[in-house]
């Protein structure tokens, strides 16, 4: 069980763990909203408030937003691609365990009242040793480096799975948009995550080994932190929304009873967003005194990046407009997402203008913007996606009645809670203050915000209740309860361990709708194809056209990923408490685990002992 490398098991673990982190992060927000409901409250001390808003951000952005999407993609990719597992099943298990351990690591000092407390972007010099001498920031710094390992190996797995493990005939222009989204996010992560891991390592060295990367007195540069952080941070924003937009692009059309309008445009917009996303990081730094030429460039880039997002929005609207919408719960979540995304996009467009940003930076306007973007583009599609794929995950449907109630409560609560934040922001309320004095006129709006936030939380809890209830009492679903077009709906719900009894061949974007669509290109075969029943096998295909070129041998269950993840966690634990013995011992254990893991095996076709060289 702990040694499982099945992508479906790992995907479910990701989904459940990330959802629990969502509830924890939500609880932290609820406490903060109680403190801010009225002026001059004293429920929390400033120190407690700092830790709460920091852990709220860290939890939602790093421990919920990407991992939940990794959960969807891990569970779905091989099913969508017509394969039997990810390219690296053991690496997949490793990625999950490291994510879990880094989540625990980041929370290790929370019960002691020593949690990270300098905000999720953790600016120096505030996060430097002289101003923040406790263990708080060390926990954050090392925890983030550890989490970076998980994100990186997870991204490697997605990229290589896309390149190598698509079903025969699933050329690159036939993969679902969710796959485009996760691929783009993963490629972006490979290039972006090293920036933040490096920044946090440098910060830890500044704090504990007296280096001077960010310390002006030693010739270092405080702004170097901001550059490295946002070079990572902005692409990361796209990494945690593009797969969610992919969920909508794939699932919304099912409830419009037609294919997505503008598949090619949406796929290209996905990639373009990420490419441009690497050139806008300075818009987080407009107020730092950079030269005007730099501000102009990054402001212009931030305006331009709206275009690919708008392409996707118009594609979804056209899909609804020209389709026959079915107002199911997933449809409501996806439609609600479009509304919230447009509002969040507009406020982002506003702050792309340097003068506007200079006025609004570090106010509640930004808090409103980022919640519209992150809850809008992540939480709502995720909720819709869980409704949509719940039958595939569990074999049962979620309750539509509870689902619709939870949508409307979440949607209304969200807008009541977050829209007024724009206004208090315009009135000048700064973000990250633990309280505010009476007489500024912010009290009434803040009470509304708190009420809305609690309504939103009630919707989330109803949604969670629906999940738990439907697990036992949900209506049994067949293989394809929504009459959807993609490959995951061709296998039983829940799918068998091997996914596909034979490897399917794919001839179009919508293999299960081919007999109904006009002018379809060919016909896919799902019931017959390569049997590949000689041990654990799947087919490897060429990168663009998906022409079979090798039969891949897949590894079985293995304890190595868990052991390596534990060794790595111990290594970082030793670094945190300066126990170099522990770290050294853990490093040796890690090398040994890797040696066992990588030991060439005849069964995987890695050594000369392999017996069944070429065959049909």
């Amino acid at each position, binding site marked *: 069980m702990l040694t499982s490398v099945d992508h479906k098991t790992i995907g479910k673990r990701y989904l459940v763990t990330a959802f629990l982190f969502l509830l924890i992060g939500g609880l932290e927000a609820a406490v903060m909203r109680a403190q801010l409901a009225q002026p001059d409250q004293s429920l929390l001390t400033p120190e407690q408030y700092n830790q709460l808003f920091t852990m709220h951000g860290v939890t939602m952005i790093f421990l919920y937003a990407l991992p939940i999407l990794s959960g969807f993609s891990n569970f779905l990719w091989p099913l969508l691609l017509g394969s039997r597992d990810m*390219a*690296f099943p053991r*690496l997949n298990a490793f990625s999950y365990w490291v994510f879990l351990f880094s989540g625990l690591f980041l929370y290790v000092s929370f019960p002691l009242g020593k949690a990270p407390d300098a905000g999720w972007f953790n600016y120096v010099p505030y996060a430097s040793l002289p101003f923040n001498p406790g263990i708080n920031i060390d926990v954050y710094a090392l925890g983030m480096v550890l989490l970076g390992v998980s994100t990186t190996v997870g991204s*490697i797995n997605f*990229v*290589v799975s896309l390149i*190598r493990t698509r079903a*025969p*005939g699933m050329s690159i222009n036939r993969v679902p948009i969710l796959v485009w989204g996760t691929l783009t996010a993963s490629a972006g992560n*490979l*290039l972006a*995550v*090293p*920036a933040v*891991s*490096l920044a946090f390592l*440098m910060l830890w060295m*500044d704090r504990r*080994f*007296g*280096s*001077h*990367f960010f*310390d002006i007195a*030693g*010739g*270092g*540069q405080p702004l*170097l932190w901001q*550059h*490295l952080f946002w*070079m990572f941070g902005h692409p990361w924003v796209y990494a945690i929304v593009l797969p969610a937009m992919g969920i909508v692009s794939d699932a919304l059309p099912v409830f419009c009873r037609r294919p997505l309008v503008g598949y090619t445009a949406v796929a290209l917009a996905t990639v373009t967003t990420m490419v441009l996303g690497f050139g806008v990081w300075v818009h987080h730094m407009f107020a730092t005194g950079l030269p005007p030429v730099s501000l102009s460039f990054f402001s212009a880039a931030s305006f331009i990046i709206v275009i690919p997002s708008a392409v996707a929005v118009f594609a979804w609207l056209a899909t609804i407009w020209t389709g026959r919408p079915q107002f199911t719960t997933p449809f409501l979540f996806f439609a609600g997402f479009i509304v919230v995304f447009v509002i969040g996009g507009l406020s982002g467009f506003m702050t792309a203008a340097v003068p506007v940003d200079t006025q609004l930076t570090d106010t509640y306007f930004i808090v409103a913007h980022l919640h519209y973007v992150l809850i809008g583009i992540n939480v709502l599609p995720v909720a819709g996606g869980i409704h949509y794929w719940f039958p595939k995950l569990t074999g049962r449907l979620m309750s539509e009645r509870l689902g619709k109630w939870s949508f409307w409560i979440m949607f209304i609560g969200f807008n009541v809670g977050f829209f007024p934040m724009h206004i208090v922001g315009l009135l000048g309320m700064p973000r990250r203050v633990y309280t505010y004095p009476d007489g500024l006129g912010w009290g009434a709006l803040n009470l509304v915000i708190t009420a809305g936030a609690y309504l939103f939380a009630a919707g989330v809890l109803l949604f969670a209740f629906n999940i738990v209830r439907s697990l036992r009492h949900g209506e049994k679903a067949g293989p394809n309860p929504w009459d959807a077009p993609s490959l995951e709906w061709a296998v039983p719900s829940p799918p068998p361990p091997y996914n596909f009894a034979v490897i399917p*061949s794919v*001839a179009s974007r919508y293999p299960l709708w081919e007999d109904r669509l006009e002018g379809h290109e*060919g016909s*896919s*075969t799902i019931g017959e*194809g390569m049997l590949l029943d000689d041990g654990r*096998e799947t*087919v*490897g295909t060429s990168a663009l056209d998906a*022409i*079979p*070129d*090798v*039969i*891949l*041998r897949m590894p079985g269950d293995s304890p190595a990923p868990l052991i390596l993840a534990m060794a790595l966690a111990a290594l970082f634990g030793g670094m945190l408490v300066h126990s170099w013995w522990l770290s050294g011992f853990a490093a040796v254990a890690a090398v040994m685990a890797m*040696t066992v893991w990588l030991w*060439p095996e005849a069964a*995987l*076709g*890695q*050594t*000369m002992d392999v017996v*069944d*060289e*070429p*065959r*049909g």
Partner: protein
Amino acid sequence: MSLVADDVRLYRGEALPVGSKGRLSSGWWGMLTVIATEAALFAYLLFSYFYVAAQATGRWPPHGPPKLGLAAAGTVLLVLGSATMWWGEKGIRAGRRGPLLVGLVSSIVLAVGFLVLEVIEWSGKDFSLASDAYGSLYYTVTGFHMLHVIVGALMLAMLAVWTALGYFGARRHSTISIAVLYWHFVTVVWIAVFVTFYVTPYLQR
């Protein structure tokens, strides 16, 4: 029978290979992605160096341009180590284990030589990690690279064991090809580090 299934059969006039086969193996592609993310890491390291250098108010580097001798010799060792690995891999492709073993052992020896030169160079410096931002950058960037050389040398050592055990031959040697890819990357990264720290200070004068 569908068009695609027929295409597949037609395309595969002969049978598909099975298992881990060179550039068809998942590991080969996995290593390319590892190299992409590692290259990004070094790009950010060198960005940090140039950023701090560009913003520096006094002279840069603060201790004057570093002496070239040891680092240049180290560069030669690493390039030679890449060449010996290339030659060893060529051997195993033709099914000859002898050249592969010779290649592996010589590359390990050259790597150790590089590390020794680096340690000598480190111990001769009159600044430390904690003395100023230049020192922090110098030891961190070269330290990161040394760590990569150590990991690479350990990898080569495991490959030598596996080769001695007779795991590899003309038909099966993906593990070798994948590790060699990494080893070449470590050499290329060093050249970028060398140019940044040792060559550019002479260019700006």
